[in-house]
């Protein structure tokens, strides 16, 4: 099976859908001729023409707004917001329009659009190239929120998102584009060609939206996480020797609560881990649900480990980022609680 980076897997997903379905179009800032600042669409304009893959003006509201109009017409745009930090100008279109069309029109109009956007830090991008705003979308009824952690899932979930008849915000942890990253920024970077999850089948397949995956089985504590933090959790587990079960959520909305409850009921402890700012992050929702549903199984409080409640600082990136040391320390503390 071919090995792909996450960038290649994402590109391949669009390639497959562009090839299969004339109704799929791909656009965004620098997405056309150049192929995207992260190269996720490289070569696609050449292959499918400027009517299917093209550049957009620098207006994120326009990118999403036109996509909604196209969806209402009946085609399936898959658009790129260059960085998740720049999705806010499109927030009104996403919240007030994309999320509401089906409901308010009693399904007279629907919104089969996909909004791809790179998120997360770890690339020295400073405050405006590092954010993880996923929880801002999970609060909005009508939106699906997806965040893969490896090339295989990225391709399968992106194809599923493009085929989904509802709007999907598809977050791409940019620190994982080239390889798994465990938070040890001072060690040599590894890449997907050496990792089993870099194995990506050719052609069409999907990974179901709304299904979590047990990334690592374990007995003593459950770590609920997603995106880059999956590998940070793995590193912390390896380094502490604590036998944790790591659940890669993959989709935040709709949430796979069954997998979560099953794991926490088994382990009796739960850590929630994400890179986004702590307060009102998606970890809050997870902690709230876990304590509600697993209260009598919990031996200690659900612990949240997350980005601090500050803007994402440039130089202090590795102090901000919840790396394996911080996770390991909290894991140990939990096991003693």
């Amino acid at each position: 099976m071919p090995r792909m980076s996450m960038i290649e897997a994402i590109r391949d997903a669009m390639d497959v859908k562009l090839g299969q379905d004339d109704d799929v179009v791909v656009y965004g800032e620098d997405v056309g001729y150049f192929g995207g600042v992260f190269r996720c669409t490289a070569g696609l304009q050449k292959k499918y023409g400027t009517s299917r893959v093209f550049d957009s003006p620098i207006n994120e509201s326009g990118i999403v707004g036109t996509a909604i109009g196209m969806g209402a017409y009946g085609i399936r745009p898959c658009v790129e917001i260059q960085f998740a930090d720049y999705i806010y100008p499109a927030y009104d279109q996403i919240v007030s329009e994309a999320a509401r069309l089906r409901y308010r029109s009693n399904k007279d109009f629907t919104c089969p659009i996909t909004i791809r956007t790179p998120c997360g830090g770890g690339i020295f991008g400073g405050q405006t190239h590092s954010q993880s705003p996923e929880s801002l979308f999970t609060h909005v009824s009508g939106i699906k929120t997806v965040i893969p952690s490896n090339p295989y899932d990225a391709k399968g979930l992106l194809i599923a998102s493009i085929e989904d008849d509802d709007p999907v915000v598809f977050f791409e942890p940019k620190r994982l584009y080239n390889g798994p990253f465990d938070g040890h920024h001072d060690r040599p970077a590894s890449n997907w060609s050496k990792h089993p999850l870099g194995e990506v089948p050719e052609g069409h397949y999907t990974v179901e939206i709304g299904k979590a995956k047990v990334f690592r089985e374990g007995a003593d504590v459950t770590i609920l996480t997603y995106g880059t933090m999956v590998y940070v959790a793995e590193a912390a587990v390896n380094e502490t020797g604590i036998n944790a079960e790591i659940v890669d959520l993959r989709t935040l909305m709709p949430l796979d609560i069954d997998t979560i409850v099953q794991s926490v009921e088994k382990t009796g402890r739960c850590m929630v881990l994400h890179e986004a700012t702590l307060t009102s992050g998606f970890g809050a929702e997870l902690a709230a649900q876990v304590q509600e549903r697993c209260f009598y199984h919990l031996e200690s409080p659900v612990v949240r480990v997350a980005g601090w409640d500050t803007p994402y600082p440039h130089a202090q990136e590795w102090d901000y980022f919840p790396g394996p040391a911080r996770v390991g320390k909290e894991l140990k503390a939990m096991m003693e609680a």
Partner: protein
Amino acid sequence: MSDYGPLKFHVPEPPGRPGDAPNFDGIEIPEAGSVRRPAVDSKAADMKELASTMIRVLNTEGEAVGEWAEGLDDDVLLTGLKNMIRVRAYDERMMTLQRQGKTSFYMKCTGEEAIAVGFRAALSKGDMNFPTYRQQGLLLSTDYPMVDMICQILSNSRDPLKGRQLPIMYSSKEHGFFTISGNLGTQFIQAVGWAMASAIKGDTKIAAGWIGDGSTAATDFHASLVNASVYKPPVILNVVNNQWAISSFRGIAGGDHATFAERALGYDIPALRVDGNDFLAVYAASKWAVERARRGFGPTLIEWVTYRVAPHSTSDDPSQYRPKEESSAWPLGDPILRLKNHLVARGMWSDEQQVQAEAEYNDEIRAATKEAESYGVMGSGASPKDMFDDVYKEMPRHLREQRQKMGV
């Protein structure tokens, strides 16, 4: 810097406030027939003056004059008059329902009927409007069942939108009427996107965006013009300049010293500025822009100059912020009266027919209202069961749980 005086802050004020005499000196009204009609493939740069003047067809004698009067279909005019009468009668009746407490809310388009009705007459089946709340005329010019419209207003058990939307926020894909949004401006860019899709697919359908003068200030107005400028999709960008945005006059949208049509020129989009109370001008300009779009020459922005005779909505009282007599002093007159006079002058219509048409529509509306009320009025119709459907195509687990919790 001592030779510079202190700066002053400038806030535009309308020419009249309550207590003042109405004053429309600022509205320049060119002679009917004085504006040329360029070819539909003209470049924006070659027709700039059409953004600053006003296309008018009916002169004070009720005659249709000038280039824009050519090739207008008499049937369309007759049907247009009837549809306008129907719209006005509908508005009156719905207001009554609101006063009777049968619905929570209503918005009239009094004085602006020619715009939606005349524009709709230029469209074809399959074209899509992205209307605001003041384009009921678009839907009332089609065969969309009036009963369904009233059921939406009443939020009753036959409301096509299941009670989920505020009254007046209709939706009918079948009738080229996009689901209305409460958020201003957001649909304008969606119209552009819809038209882009039509072009991408090599279709022949066109889209029309709608926005009010006040809402041109909104964020997505610019997104729309930029995208229309770049991709040249088959879209008509309609700006209904009815002089007011709730209590704010056009100057608060920056429309006091430049016209809204002129905005388009900086984006290389051709623009027409049209007497929106002149049905013939509306229809002629609409036809021109529709032809331009469908022939692949790209977008047109049209500013429809009109006046919001009614209060903003049933929650509003305009006597608080504008001269009482302003609406009757509006120099472009009543669109229904003007078209009627034209048709009467041409022997195509009579006062008797007018009275009869009014009576007929009143009857139609009374009957439709009666039928609609049989499905319930506000507060007695829509079911909580429907509340959890259609958030997503398939109901996710958490919504099933919530519905269960609610016990429905």
